[in-house]
Each structure stands twice: as C-alpha cells, then as structure tokens.
C-alpha cells in the first residue's frame, strides 16, 4: 500500500522542507491552492510512488518564496497560482507577472476580486 499523506507546516519551513525533499530524490508532483480565509497551499512530492503533501495556510497579503529554484517545474504552478488566485509569490525563476493565463478577469478564482 502506497502512502498518500498530508503534513501541516509553517510558511517559514517551506524552503527547508522543499530542499530536503530535493536532496532525498523526491519529484514535485503538483502545487495547488484553495481559497479559504486566506489561501491554503498544498505542495505534493513523490518518491517510489509514495506521495507526501505539505500543507500551509497563509493570509492573502502574505508573500511567500518560490520553490522554483529548487524544483524548476514549480514555476508553472506558481504562475498559475498568481494568475488565477492572486497568491503573492516572489523569486519565480520564470515569472510571467500575471500573464501566463490569458484571462479577461484578474485572478478569477479569487472571489474577492
């Protein structure tokens, strides 16, 4: 039976945890955001088909660091989170500055906008 677990972390722990997963040979599976009171972010990693998801909740105005300099494919997910939800992410290796998705309305997945 393969694992599929969610672990809660603090935003300040994200980079350290991501680097640890990288060093241990994990693959970035996906990143997603859910609009709650703020944002609920989920970073999923896989090794030998066991999946671990790091979960953190942040306020809408909180800036978080990109993990794309650790896991390059993260740039796509992070640009998507910026474009569709308005999550504030800094240091993305390939930052489209809100222009990855050609949407008529800004941050359409974030009801407040």
């Amino acid at each position, binding site marked *: 039976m393969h694992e599929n677990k969610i672990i809660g972390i603090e935003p300040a722990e994200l980079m350290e945890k991501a680097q640890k997963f990288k060093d241990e040979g994990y693959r970035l599976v996906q990143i997603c955001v859910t609009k709650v009171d703020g944002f609920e972010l989920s970073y999923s990693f896989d090794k030998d088909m066991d*999946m671990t998801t790091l979960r953190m909740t942040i306020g809408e105005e909180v800036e978080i660091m990109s993990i794309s300099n650790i896991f390059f494919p993260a740039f796509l997910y992070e640009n998507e989170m910026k474009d569709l939800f308005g999550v504030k992410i800094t240091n993305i290796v390939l930052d489209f500055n809100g222009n990855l998705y*050609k949407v008529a309305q800004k941050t359409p997945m974030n009801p407040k906008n």
Partner: protein
Amino acid sequence: MGKRTIIPFGPQHPVLPEPIHLDLVMEDETVVEAIPSIGYIHRGLEKLVEKKDFIEYVYVAERICGICSFMHGMGYCQSVEHGMGLEIPRRAEYLRTIWAELSRIHSHLLWLGLLADGFGFESLFMHSWRIREKILDIFEATTGGRVIFSVCKVGGTRRDMSNDTLKDIVKTLTNMEAEVKELCDVFVEDYTVKSRTVGVGVLTKQEAHDLGAVGPMGRASGLPSDMRLLGYAAYDDLDFEPIIETAGDSYARTVVRIREIYQAIDLIKQAAAKIPDGEISVKVTGVPNAEIFERLEQPRGEVIYYTKGIGTKFLERVRVRTPTFANVPPMIKTLQGCDLADVPILILTIDPCISCTER
C-alpha cells in the same frame, strides 16, 4: 554567438491540434530557448464546482478533455468515492478498467496519426485513424457515445456490458492486433520515420525525473512510473509491468506508446476473462466531507484529482493537475538546442492536450 531572433510558434499552427504558444529564441536554425504561454482556452472548469453539486460535476470533469474524457470522469468519481468511504461494486471497477484501457488505445492511435501527419506521412496518419475508428465503434456500442460517454458516476457505472458484448470486444481487439502490428512496424522500422525521431529531443532519465516528466514521456527516458501500479479500479487483479524504454528520444516515446497499445489490449482481455458478476453501482448517501488526492494513469500520464468536501453537496475545491501540464517543463528542455524543423515533432512527442492543461 550568432544574432538572436524570436519566432512565435502557435497558438495556431498546422501540426497543433490545440492552441499552445511558444516564443522560440533562435540562433540561426537552432532553438536556444523556448518560452511557453498558455491560456487561450482556459474555461474555468474548476470554478464550476461552485455551481454544480458533487453528483453533477462528473459531467464537467468529462468535458475537460475530448480524448481522455472517460478517465477524467473516472478520476473525479474515484476521488469523491474515496473521500466518502464509498466502496463500489467490483464489476463496476472492472468495467471502468476496460473503458479506461480502450481510451488508452484510441488516444495512442490518435497520437500516432498526428505524429505521422506532423512529418508529412499522410497515408500512415489515415491508417492510424482508420484503426482507431474500431475503438470508437466499441465505445458507441457500449456507452452510446463516441467522445463523451457519461457512463461513470459517483457510486459505480451507469451501463453494464453483457458477456456477449465482452466476447465481441475481445474478438475485435484480437483481429485488430494484426492491423496494429502492420501499422506500427512502419513507425518502428521505416527509414524516413526513424530519420525524424531517432536521437531527436533526448531527455535523460535524470532530467525526466528533475523536470517532473510523467507517462510515456517519462517512461521513454527510463522512469518506471505508472500510476496503475497503485492498484486502483481492477488493476490490482491484472498482470502487467510498466513499459520502459531508455533512449529518451522521440523514437523511444513512439515505441513506448506502441507497446502500450498491445499492453492495453492484453489488459482488456485479462479483465474480460476475470470480470465478476454482480451489481454495477451502489446507492450514494451523505455528502463529501474529506479531502483526497487521487492519482490515475491517463494515456498521457499521471493525472491528479484533488477534491475537498466540507459536508455540503457542493465541494469546496476540485483541482485537476493534468499530465500535459506536468510535461511542459520537459518539453521546454527537449526544445533547447534542437533544429527549428524538429520543433513540431518534439511538441507532438509529449502528446500535448491543451484543453486538459488549461481546464
């Protein structure tokens, strides 16, 4: 360093069935960098979960993609069922497996045709799609639809297959194998095909892992990743190994998909022989109140269905990470250093589905 120019590739291009845009930074005829942009067909399907209840949303999920429509419905249903602790009948799991593997055959044959079209081998393209029609006929006979089936529902399936139908499917696939072999021998052995694919767009195993390649894109580079090994649906009862190649080039990606057609035929035969009698669905009571990350192996690779229920009939979140989305970074890597003339083939070899990617 020569003079650099930027060539826009897409969103409308003869080899692209769907719109993706790349800015190709060129030095003479060589691609130095490829910068993707998407969003031309973003439909906000994840947002629709606010308006469709968890039973209705399966119809939305199926419309994410016209090629792996069934497997999107299946992934969504599995995620909700696991979140609700719902155990569906074993026969329904077998039926889902059969339709899923039929979808894999039709998707790979469609892709082979597009690849042939991409390098101008029109008769090969037509033969690929001619054989694919037989799979669509099976879909029509068993579900009533050729593209969108709506046979998957939360709690099981809407339709059953009789024993005679299963025998007919096995007979059709057995007869089809010879035609598939005749077709695929051209892809594997023909000089002109090999000249466009062998050694083109090499992705090493390490690169495939680091860049998150999934499905045939990763397996052609030696990654033994296949979500069917998780044992969902009836796969835990079936005997199979992931199809692996190691060269990591366009030819290896073609060979993996060809071998997966034979593998899918074998899996359908196994499932048809082992399918148990019984009900095809259970009554659904209650509402989802849990979150689940569900993973399946679509024809293009690993898909993630994340559903989060909050104890109402509307889910708080549905998130779909499609295989093409994951394969964009590896595609960018394979484009770096390639000739301009190889760009269409390299984009095709990830089997891009932009409709899926943008949702």
